């Protein structure tokens, strides 16, 4: 088992704790925060997980006990923590938009970055949509891809709200860099309906003439199955549709677009099931942590 700790006891860090406790490959040694009163730390204590409110100091003092740190704080805090993790020889899995190391999506490009000392998980919208963009890009050229990610207002914490620009910019650039589209654009919407809505993601890909619709659909269906292996609540809301344009995209005019409507429900570990945006990040983080842990163990032996 690979020993790890979580830095940050907010929504993401706490949800991640529940998932790490179910992993057979990762051994969670502590949930580390800075606020001794936080709900996350008290829940962890109730579940028998070691806790600390000493922040980075805990990591420095316990570096010999762990191999991986999951960063669930904020972009600014991760930027200040990252050099210390590196000095201590710890691998960082960054769930903030800091993006110091390469951006990774399981099933898309993770295997290329198994030895990176710091990897970034992009955003919830990125984890939900980049696999689909990559699935289309495997079968056709995509001059322009666009995603709309809508989350329930109740599931968006203060960090997400204060950083909505970072969300859209990081996701947009990763639609290109990881997904494979020539130009990418991401849009984020908060919906305040009560009861809260499930996380919804819509992927549009522009397509030039000459694509094979059946192969594109097959590639998407396979990808959805793969993502479901780590996010059980990830699903196509409707069968993908091809719509006729023309559309004057920034990547050039295209005759057709494919529209893929997705829904993500969570496992209701920390927030209720509507907060699929939490799960897709934390579930991807566990998958990435397991792969990086195995790679570290392999190279050590």
């Amino acid at each position: 088992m690979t020993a790890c700790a979580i830095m940050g006891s907010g929504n993401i860090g706490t949800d991640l704790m529940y998932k790490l406790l179910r992993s057979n490959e990762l051994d969670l040694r502590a949930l580390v925060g800075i606020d001794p009163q936080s709900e996350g730390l008290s829940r962890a204590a109730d579940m028998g997980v070691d806790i600390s409110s000493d922040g980075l100091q805990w990591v420095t003092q316990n570096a010999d006990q762990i191999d991986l740190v999951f960063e669930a704080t904020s972009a600014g805090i991760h930027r200040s923590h990252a050099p210390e993790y590196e000095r201590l020889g710890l691998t960082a899995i960054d769930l903030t938009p800091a993006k110091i190391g390469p951006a990774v999506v399981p099933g898309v490009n993770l295997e290329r970055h198994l030895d990176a000392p710091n990897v970034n998980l992009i955003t919830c919208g990125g984890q939900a949509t980049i696999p689909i963009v990559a699935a289309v890009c495997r079968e056709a050229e995509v001059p322009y891809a666009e995603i709309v990610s809508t989350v329930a207002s109740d599931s968006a914490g203060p960090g997400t709200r204060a950083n909505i620009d970072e969300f859209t910019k990081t996701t947009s650039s990763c639609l290109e860099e990881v997904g494979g589209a020539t130009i990418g654009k991401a849009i984020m919407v908060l919906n305040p309906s009560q009861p809260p809505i499930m996380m919804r993601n819509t992927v549009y890909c522009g397509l030039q003439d000459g694509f094979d619709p059946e192969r594109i659909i097959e590639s998407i269906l396979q990808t959805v199955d793969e993502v479901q292996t780590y996010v059980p609540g990830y699903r196509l809301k409707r069968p993908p549709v091809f719509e006729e344009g023309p559309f004057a995209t920034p990547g050039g005019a295209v005759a057709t677009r494919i529209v893929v409507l997705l829904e993500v429900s969570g496992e209701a570990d920390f927030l209720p099931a509507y907060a699929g945006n939490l799960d897709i990040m934390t579930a991807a983080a566990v998958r990435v942590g397991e792969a990086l842990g195995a790679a570290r163990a392999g190279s050590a032996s």
Partner: protein
Amino acid sequence: MTAAFRLTDSTLRDGSHAIKHQFTVDQVRAVVRGLDRAGVEVIEVAHGDGLGGSSFNYGFSGIDEMELVRAAVDEAENARIAVLLLPGIGVKDDLAQAADIGASVARIATHSTEADISHQHIALAKDLGMETVGFLMLSHMVAPSELLEQALLMESYGADAVYVVDSAGAMTVSDTMERITTLKNGLKCGVGLHAHNNLSLAVANSLAAIGEGIDQVDGCLTGLGAGAGNCPTEILVAACDKAGFETGINLTDLLDVATDVVRPLSPNQGVIDRDGLMLGYAGVYGSFLLHAKRAAEVYDVACDDILLELGRRGIVGGQEDMIIDVALELRQATDDGDRSK
């Protein structure tokens, strides 16, 4: 005599919805020239969904909006140019670019319960030296007291004014008065109204707000805009003249630009048809209309049904993708029904 309120004309932003975001540089120059001559102080120019709105989801702009902003800045002699930005769609870089080109008023729009996502954008606009307006969309969806809480957030970030925005054209005169008086009493900054005409109440609501001492009001020439359209600038000015509210705007000059430049773009603007009325009735975001009409045609379902379902689901501005979702669901239900017959 000083004007009773300040008018912002949004023909070149909200009006963009009605012509699927296809304004040309020449049209922008002609509209700005006419509004400027008439004495309109602020003219808004952007994609209908704000800076960065050009997309599959909201429709691609015919001409890059920054080029249109540049033309407007160049053409205006007295008027100042405003831009709109919806956090989550546009980003701070877009705002900085518009300011650099010469836009001097920033309007930052969020859903009426989500003001806290506007913090960094309002702060940036102030840093850039822009007059900054908070825009609370779909204001009809929340109670006046809740709207005030959100408006106070925008004020605390530095907004010079906060708008009640009736994006669905769903507010009656009393709905409008309640919200305007609550904001007027609770805010130190200015208060504005952006009305839509789906219930044929845009001018009436604006006049009522002016009677309550509102600071800013929006209009669009001929009402060109999302849904059944906006408050028609020329009709508002005429009604203000009759009601004794000073506007500082020349009606004849306004009518010239409305008739010669804007009317030909959308000859039926002002007609409140079945779908337009349904938006106001169901409380649905006005910009959905043309997207819903398109989806109704593509998937052979009723536009009414799409709009009602969007209202039932509580879909908010920005979620145009859900129009396709609803159309596919209705199509599926119809096909399933046919099969079981």
